[in-house]
């Protein structure tokens, strides 16, 4: 799950969103944007309308993924969660304040073009509350490789008819819709699918973000031997099943880590009370054990049936009204693909302290924060 989403984007520099030295030290620092990507499912991350032609369908967007497990934190020798701060290598004695940090693009070795918040602000997509459907395509033509992150589109209780009509039509005709929308100042291409009367959205990668087999440099096929193909077919048939048993697709790692921690807690071993970690994702806040999921499904049911469902709390206590941001997903995700050696190289360039002792995940998190 991508964390520190906003930082991935060009727009995000120290400003307020970045853990500026000030923020990092403040005890009451707001949760990082990581929280957004990990938000519990039963909270709308965006609301607006699907439009196509003259038709307007009011919808709310809900994440179709939920966080699981406990993120690993960096702790001090006594178990206290650490804060991150920025210093100038020339004067390491004091942390830098937010307004002492600028954003620079390295055009040549050591030569930077400075880019200000205002400049980036000026070229940001304009605000919009619409998901405008610009094309309908054969749904089978959109390869899942394009998908970044899934959402549910939940209709407004009073206006579910247009929603149902759109969903039903798309399903009957085997079409998916392509659209573009703006969430928290960032644009996302999105594909909308209809399944069993429910609309879902998948944010998409951009066209130049996927490599082809040629880009990767895979060899061209030899003459394919029919006997071998037949043998492979038999191997495939031997494994054929009609359905996917989803219980086989559960990564037990997160649960095991929690179990290990719970056992230590029960023994009173290595347990430390400390102020809640602030810079990393807020802990159990969004931890979903299934409760919210049921709520979400109940919510969709009620809305679809035109019942007056209680409106869910909208992002209570969150400063950004407009919900989630995961554009950085692409970028964070790209780091995931690097070898540890490559990550170490990057970390070295960024002067990240403690890099040689970090796990891959820690390296990725640190690189994202620093770049």
């Amino acid at each position, binding site marked *: 799950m991508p964390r520190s989403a906003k930082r991935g984007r060009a727009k995000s520099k120290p400003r307020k969103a970045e853990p500026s030295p000030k923020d990092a030290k403040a005890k009451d620092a707001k949760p990082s944007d990581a929280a957004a990507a990990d938000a519990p499912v039963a909270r709308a991350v965006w609301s607006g309308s699907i439009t196509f*032609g003259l038709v307007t369908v009011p919808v709310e967007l809900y994440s179709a993924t939920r966080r699981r497990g406990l993120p690993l934190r*960096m702790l001090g020798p006594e178990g206290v969660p650490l804060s991150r701060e920025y210093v100038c290598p020339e004067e390491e004695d004091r942390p830098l304040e937010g307004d002492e940090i600028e954003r620079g693009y390295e055009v040549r070795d050591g030569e930077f073009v400075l880019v200000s918040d205002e400049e980036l602000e000026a070229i940001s*997509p304009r605000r919009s509350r619409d998901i405008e459907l610009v094309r*309908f395509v054969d749904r089978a033509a959109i390869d899942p490789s394009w998908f970044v992150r899934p959402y549910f589109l939940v209709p407004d209780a009073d206006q579910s008819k247009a929603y149902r009509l759109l969903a039903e039509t798309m399903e009957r005709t085997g079409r998916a819709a392509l659209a573009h929308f703006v969430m928290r100042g960032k644009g996302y291409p999105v594909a909308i699918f209809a399944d069993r009367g429910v609309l879902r959205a998948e944010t998409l990668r951009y066209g130049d973000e996927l490599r082809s087999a040629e880009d990767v*440099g895979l060899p061209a096929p030899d003459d394919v031997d029919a006997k071998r*193909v037949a043998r492979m077919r038999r191997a495939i048939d031997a494994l054929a099943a009609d359905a996917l048993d989803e219980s086989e697709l559960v990564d037990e790692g997160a649960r095991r880590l929690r179990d290990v921690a719970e056992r230590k807690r029960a023994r009173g071993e290595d347990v430390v009370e400390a102020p809640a970690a602030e810079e990393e994702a807020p802990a159990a806040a969004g931890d979903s054990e299934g409760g919210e999921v049921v709520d979400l499904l109940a919510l969709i049911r009620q809305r679809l049936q035109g019942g007056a469902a209680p409106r869910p709390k909208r992002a209570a206590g969150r400063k950004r009204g407009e919900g989630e941001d995961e554009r950085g997903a692409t970028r964070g995700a*790209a780091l995931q693909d690097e070898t540890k050696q490559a990550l170490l190289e990057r970390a070295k360039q960024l002067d990240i302290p403690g890099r040689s002792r970090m796990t891959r995940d820690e390296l990725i998190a640190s690189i994202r924060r620093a770049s």
Partner: protein
Amino acid sequence: MARAMWKAQLALGDVEIPVKLYAAVQDRDVHFRLLHAKDRVPVKQRMVDPRSGEEVAPEAVRRGVEIDSGLFVVLGDDDLAAAEPEASRTIEVRRFVPRAAIDLSFYARPYFLGPDGAQACADYFALAAAIGDGERVGVAHWVMRKKRSFGALVARGPHLALVTLRSADEVVAAGQLPQPGGSEIRAAERALAEQLVAALDAPFDPAQLRDEYRERVEALIEAKAAGRKPKLPKEAAPPKPSGDLAAVLKRSLAAAKESRRAA
């Protein structure tokens, strides 16, 4: 030639094919460095104890989890190892299921598989040909970098690809969703909607998925690097409905009136 991320044996029953794993996603984002404004030196980050503001040396940093709000459990290497899956170099294909059996929300991230060595080519291409554009998708399990991973094994033309799948407890699957109900949709409405959808029908063309914001950022940097005063490129106007659609809309509105009168 892209560098392989990992080597493994792709196993289906008693068939084993040595493969290499390659990233299919490439990072296109514009990356900035944080600089100290005064001297434009890239800043360093360091970890500090928030109570004292004292730096904690990297070798003194420990790892742990926040098990309850404000309650931390420190985890040693042994603890972390206890939670890790057993290391392996096998990508085990356990099932082949119909494409439709995998909920869209599971798909996470694509990779290419390539044959590892000339010996592997014959089996590799034979397997890709056998999977073909068929309706069956392999469901694979493997452990990479101390993490359990799942993926859908598919063919991309003559090559094999692996799209990772999210863990089931991370996904709210649409299979749990109710059938929608509500006031009945009339045949006339259905016909109109179908017309509208048909009017906007087009092939899926990834080239149209352009990151215009990134293009504007790049133009801005380029102008500034060349010492030009950046002419901040304006955002393109949102796409307009085609002429065809307008015609359909006119017809649809007329038809809507008609059906209202009839009702």
